[in-house]
C-alpha cells in the first residue's frame, strides 16, 4: 500500500495505462516537458516519448477533434483540458461528435476518448479557472462522466476510464490534487467499477450525496453532526453520468432524508436530477423533501468572495437542520 496525492495517483494511473496499452496516448497543451500546469503528467514524456505524450497546439477543439480521429483509427487518447472554463471551445466536438459517433454508426464505431478536466473552485484563482460544468455534459447522451475524490479511486478510475469503450469525461477535483491517501496498486477493490457509488460513511438519520471535491466536506459535516447526536450516511457518487441511483435509493430507504451537495449551481444541476429520481423511486420512504446544496445562479464569483459561494460544512449542516426539522 502506497501513500500518494491525488495528482500523483492520476500520474501513476496514466503511467500504468501507457505501459499496458501501446495504443494509449496523452494529448494536451503543456502536458509534455512542463508536465501539465498541475504537473499531473510530470515525467511521462521522458518515459514514453513525444508520440505518446503529445504537447499539442493551444486549441481545445483541435485536441478533442484529433483525439476522435485517433480513436477511430484504434487508439485510446486521453486529452487534458487545462482548466474547466476552457473546455467550451471543445464543446461542439464533445457534444455533437464524440458523444454521437457510436449511435450514428449503429454501433459499428467506438470512440474511447478520455477528456481530463481539472475542475471546481477553492484555489483562489481568476475567472474561468474554477467552474463546474459537469451538468452541461451530463445532459448529453453518449458521454460518461466520473470524478474521483481520493487517491485510490483516482489511480484506478483513470485506468478504467481509458479501458472503457465509451467516451469518458474525467473531472479532477483540482483543489484536492494535493490530498494524500493510501493507494492499493494491486487491488482495485470497489474501484473495479468506476460508475458505482460508494457508501463512504454509514449512518441512520440522513444521507448526504457528494462527489469529487465535496466528498471531504460532506464527511466533515457528518462528523460535526455527531455532536448533535445525528448519525449521517455519506455517499461518494463518483459517477455523475450514469448516476448510481440504486445505491442512493437504498441509503434513502434506510435514512429517510437526502441532501445532495455539489459546487455547480443548483439550478439545472445534477442535484435536481437526483432529487427528482429519488422522489420517484422512494417517495414513501422520504421524511423530508430532498434538499440541494450548491452554487448560486451566477457566474463563478471572484476569488475573494468564493468562500461565500462554495458549499461548506455550515451550509450542509444548515440543510441537514432543515431536513431533520420535517
Amino acid at each position: 500500500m502506497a501513500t500518494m496525492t491525488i495528482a500523483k495517483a492520476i500520474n501513476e494511473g496514466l503511467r500504468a495505462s501507457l505501459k499496458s496499452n501501446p495504443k494509449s496516448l496523452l494529448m494536451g497543451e503543456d502536458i509534455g516537458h512542463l508536465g501539465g500546469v498541475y504537473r499531473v503528467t510530470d515525467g511521462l514524456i521522458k518515459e514514453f516519448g513525444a508520440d505518446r505524450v503529445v504537447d499539442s497546439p493551444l486549441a481545445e477543439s483541435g485536441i478533442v477533434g484529433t483525439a476522435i480521429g485517433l480513436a477511430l483509427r484504434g487508439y485510446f487518447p486521453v486529452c487534458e483540458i487545462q482548466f474547466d472554463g476552457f473546455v467550451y471551445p471543445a464543446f461542439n466536438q464533445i457534444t455533437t461528435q464524440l458523444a454521437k459517433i457510436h449511435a450514428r454508426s449503429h454501433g459499428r464505431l467506438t470512440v474511447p476518448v478520455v477528456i481530463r478536466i481539472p475542475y471546481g473552485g477553492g484555489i483562489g484563482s481568476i475567472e474561468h479557472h474554477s467552474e463546474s460544468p459537469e451538468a452541461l455534459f451530463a445532459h448529453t447522451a453518449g458521454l460518461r462522466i466520473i470524478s474521483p475524490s481520493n487517491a485510490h479511486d483516482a489511480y484506478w478510475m483513470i485506468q478504467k476510464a481509458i479501458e472503457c469503450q465509451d467516451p469518458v469525461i474525467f473531472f479532477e477535483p483540482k483543489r484536492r490534487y494535493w490530498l494524500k491517501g493510501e493507494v492499493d496498486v494491486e487491488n482495485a477493490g470497489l474501484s473495479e467499477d468506476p460508475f458505482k457509488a460508494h457508501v463512504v460513511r454509514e449512518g441512520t438519520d440522513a444521507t448526504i450525496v457528494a462527489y469529487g471535491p465535496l466528498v471531504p466536506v460532506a464527511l466533515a459535516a457528518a462528523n460535526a453532526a455527531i455532536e448533535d447526536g445525528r448519525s449521517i450516511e455519506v455517499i461518494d457518487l463518483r459517477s455523475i453520468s450514469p448516476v448510481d441511483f440504486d445505491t442512493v435509493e437504498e441509503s434513502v430507504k434506510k435514512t429517510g432524508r437526502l441532501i445532495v451537495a455539489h459546487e455547480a449551481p443548483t439550478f439545472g444541476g445534477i442535484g435536481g436530477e437526483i432529487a427528482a429520481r429519488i422522489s420517484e423511486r422512494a417517495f414513501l420512504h422520504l421524511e423530508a423533501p430532498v434538499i440541494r446544496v450548491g452554487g448560486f445562479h451566477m457566474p463563478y464569483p471572484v476569488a475573494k468572495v468564493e468562500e461565500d459561494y462554495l458549499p461548506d460544512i455550515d451550509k450542509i449542516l444548515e440543510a441537514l437542520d432543515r431536513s431533520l426539522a420535517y
Partner: protein
Amino acid sequence: MGSTQLPPGTDETLAATSAAVAASGEPVEMVQLLGPDGKLGTDPVFSDYAKRIDPEKLRVFYADMARIRRFDQEATALQRQGELALWVPLTGQEAAQIGSAHASQPQDYIFPTYREHGVALVRNVDLAELLKQFRGVSNGGWDPRGNNFHLYTLVLAAQTLHAVGYAMGIQRDQKLAVAGDSNDPKAAVIAYFGDGASSEGDVHESMVFAASYDAPVVFFCQNNHWAISVPTEVQTKVPLANRAKGYGFPGIRVDGNDVIAVHAVTEWALEHAREGRGPVLIEAYTYRVGAHTTADDPTKYRELAEEAAWREKDPLERLEKYLRTEGLADEAFFEQVQADGDELAKYVRSTTHGLEVPDIRDSFANVYAEAHPLIAEEQAWFEEYSAGFEADQEAAN
C-alpha cells in the same frame, strides 16, 4: 482637419502598401489540363500524373460522373415526391469528386462532409444506404470501415479534425509496423469540405495540427462558390488555396470541372502525404449548379447568367468532347452509360421505397458501447409502456 491629421506622405505610402498587399491576394494559377473546349493541354508538373490515366480509366471517369449525375436527379425527384426529407444535390461537382476519389487507394480513409455522393460511388458505398440519412431512417447508413468512407457530418468542418487525428493514427501505425515488420501499404486521409466550411474554426485548427505533426492528410476543398446564399467572397479575401502557405504546406488550386487535372493533382497530393511529406490543401474551383439543398432557392440570391456561364464549363460535356474527338469512346459506349444510369435510378427508386423504418429499440442499443443503467431503465419502461398498448389491443380483439 482634426487632431488625427496624418503626417505628410502617409496616405500615399498607405495606398502603395495596400495595393501590394492586395496584389498578394490575387488568384493563384489554376491547374487545368482538359479545357471547356474538350482539348487536352499541358502542365509543367501535373502532365506526368495525367499520363498515368489510360483511356479505359477515362471512360470509367465519364461513366461514374454520368451515373452520379443521374443518381442526383433521381434523388431530387424522390425528395420532390416526399420520399426523402431533404436532398443535397451535387450536379456540377462531379469532376471534383470522381477525379479525386479515383486518386485514392483502398487503404486511404476518407472523411466527407455531406455532398460527396460521387466519392461514395467510387468507394463502392451502396447508394441506397446513402439515402437512409435523407429518408430519416438512419443518422448514418453504411459501414464506414467497409469502404474506408466515413459517415456524413452535418456540423460543418468537424470532420476535418477527425481526419487529421486519423492521419496521426496512421503515422503511429507505421511506427508500430516498422517495429513489427508489417507489409501494410502506406495510407493517407482525405478530408472533404466546402468554401463555406473553410470559415469554421475547426478547419483552422485542423490545418495547424496537420502542419505541426506532418500528418498524412489531403484537405480537399470544393469551392462551389456558394455557402447556401453567401458567396465565397464573404468567406475569404484571398484564394482558399493560398491559405495553405500560412500553415506551411502546399496549396493548389485546380479546375474542379476538369476530371483529369483533379485526378492528377490529388494523386500527387496523396503520394506526397503517404510518403511522410506532410499535408496538402487542394482547392477544387467548381460550381454548385443546383440548389444548396432541396429546401433552398438559388434564384433569390444569384443571377441566372452566372449559372449559365458555369454550365459552359460542364465537366461531363468537356470529357465527352475529348473522348469523341480522340476516338476513345464510341456511340455504343455513351448509350451504355445512359442505360446504366437509368438502371441505377431504377434501383435507387425501388430500394428507397423498401428502406425499413427502424425500431427505436435499435437506438437504445447504440447510445453506449458498454452496459448503462439509465438506458436499461428507460428501455424497460418503454417495453412496459408498449406492452400496455398491446394488451389493450388484444382486449379489444
